């Protein structure tokens, strides 16, 4: 019967459309990751920032404002490193470049690679913190027992919202030894 043949064909068409939808949504799940990262970095949501050096022009220093920048350091998981800021906080004027030092020591008797991940609170300050140099831009190899003093050069740009008088910059050390061994290249940014 042609009627039945028609129905069969319609069924098959429907079926292939639905299978396409399934495949599409599977892909969409993977797409959500990059999408989310892009949105967060564009808007500074979540205290995320581009992990790369920014250009800083010598501009106007706003000496009328003083903002406290606090430093927080954490080692993820088991404490493979000693990790701290050499000063807990610093008072800064927006528009001026500052250097602060961080200290880290590999407490294990094997070589390790660390990846520091920065985060800024409040999130709305994230787009205004400019770093020209940071140990978080690259993976940091540590020989067994090695210690390092690591500078961070940064500036708060004068467009920092007026309501913010304290910015917290936190770094978390992750063990990236496996990742480094696997891909001996720079981290994803």
């Amino acid at each position, binding site marked *: 019967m042609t009627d039945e043949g028609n*129905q069969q064909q*319609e*069924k098959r068409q*429907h*079926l292939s459309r*639905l*299978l396409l*939808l*399934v*495949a*599409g*949504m*599977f*892909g*969409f*799940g*993977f797409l*959500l*990751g990059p999408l*989310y*990262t892009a949105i*967060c970095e564009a*808007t500074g*949501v*979540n*205290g*995320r920032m581009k*992990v790369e050096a920014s250009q800083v022009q010598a501009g106007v220093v706003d000496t009328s404002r003083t903002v406290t920048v606090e430093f927080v350091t954490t080692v*993820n998981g088991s404490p493979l490193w000693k990790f701290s800021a050499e000063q807990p906080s610093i008072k800064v004027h927006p528009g001026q470049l500052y250097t602060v030092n961080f200290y880290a020591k590999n407490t294990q008797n094997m070589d390790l690679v660390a*990846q520091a*991940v920065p985060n800024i609170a409040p*999130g*709305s300050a994230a787009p205004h913190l400019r770093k020209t140099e940071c140990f978080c831009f690259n993976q940091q190899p540590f020989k067994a027992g090695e210690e390092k003093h690591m500078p961070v050069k940064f500036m708060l740009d004068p467009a920092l919202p007026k309501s913010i008088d304290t910015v917290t910059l936190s770094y*978390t050390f*992750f*063990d*990236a030894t*496996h*990742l480094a061994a*696997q*891909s001996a290249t720079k*981290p*994803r*940014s």
Partner: protein
Amino acid sequence: MAHAHHDHADHGHDDHAHGPDKGIMRWIKTTNHKDLGTLYLFFSFTMFFIGGLMSLVIRAELFHPGLQFVDPELFNQMTTMHALVMIFGGVMPGFVGLANWMVPMMIGCSDLALPRVNNWGFWLLPFAFTMLISTLFLPGGAPAGGWTMYPPLVLQTGDAFPLLIFAVHLMGISSITGAINVVVTILNMRAPGMSLLKMPLFVWTWLITAYLLIAVMPVLAGAVTMLLTDKYFHTSFFSAAGGGDPVMFQHIFWFFGHPEVYIMILPAFGIVSTIIPTFARKTLFGYDSMVYATASIAFLSFIVWAHHMFTVGMPLAAELFFMFATMLIAVPTGVKVCNWMATMWRGSMTFETPMLFAIAFVFLFTIGGFSGVMLALTPVDFQYQDTYFVVAHFHYVLVPGAVFSIIAAVYYWIPKWTGRMYSESAGKWHFWLSAIFINLTFFPQHFAGLAGMQRRVPDYAVQFTDMNVLSTVGAFGFFLAQFIFIFNMLGSCYGWFGRQRNLPDRVWEGAKGFEWIVPSPAPYHTFEDQYPLPDAELSVHHDAKH
């Protein structure tokens, strides 16, 4: 009239002379939608039993503060496994079983569109759950990081981890095949003259549920695949060390997870919309608005996911957006509740067991909806997040919601399936005990949660003891009461207690639709030749539309 249709059904029988095979191979090889519906339902209730035992371990441990029966590690395994087994093994296959049995019979066609796929989809489930449950006996035990599988915690799962992921994949494939089957069947195989807006509401809600499944199960599959590669292949989707973000998993998971909770409630709406008109002896009030409400709930369910993540530190604008979008869902949900009440209004109601469960559904599900709206308020949720208040909320929508609807559906259709009436007095006992004990279990959890008792912790501060004692007593009572139901239903299946096959086609005098004009029990093959549904059997009357 009814007689003429008997001929139809019987005709199908002689013509093809293929009744069921005998023995175990019938069940393994079957492609018959009724057989598969039965298998799904038996599977579902087996999982309810296993998941129920796990919840009793949890409740026994929480009977008193301090640690008494299980160590915290096993406790965490129990909360995780209980949720996975109940959601993916109990509720979802339960609804798929009902769809298998009833969707073809309600739209007047002989089977689902892809019967072989249907068989395959079902038989994935026993493998998936054997694998998942067997992890309890592996070194390191079962997954214990919560059913939400958040990294980095879930990545610390031991040998059970790959089995968990693989089991989730299998469940996903099973759900997707089932959903595709339902969509193709409904869109291509309806009886002549049954336009979309004449379909019974259970068919409508399942159609929309199936689309939700097709849209979000692949996303879950993607999410757990990423977990797998993060653990074994050093990708960094969710690992901060490599540039990923663990919070991203939560976004992806809840993009699946919120539609998933509606997957577990929309078919329930369909069931209740079928049962209430039958026993109120009126047509459903506001059929069209029910359809549109279901569709808008499904749409909204895609844009509210972050209400599960208010505390991760989103910007204010996002918090506000997700708060308002979530509150908006209460509107179509409210439309449904009002329609059910309007259907009962001035109806000549009788209170057979399915009706009792359906009315309890309306009442208790609404309580869950109210606590949901409380949780939708961002600043309030900051305090309630991860407390027993959330546990109380989702159990009110899931147990007296989804599970009561499955129970109501089984009571309602079992006479049609087996040709034997269940015992009404046992049904009433079952209902009242269930209704009392379920409230005893979950109502006190609201108070414990508001006072600050955390979920997923095996111990608690002494001031929560009274509430937890009540909860535990309720849980054991509820579990035991279900045996009344199981024996009552098995009695109809196997003809125990002297039950005879002596039922009319239309078992409930107020019931309408294709399924009530075939004999009871429904013959193995129905509607091999399709014919239009008589007007009097329509579940809706569109005035002046024909």
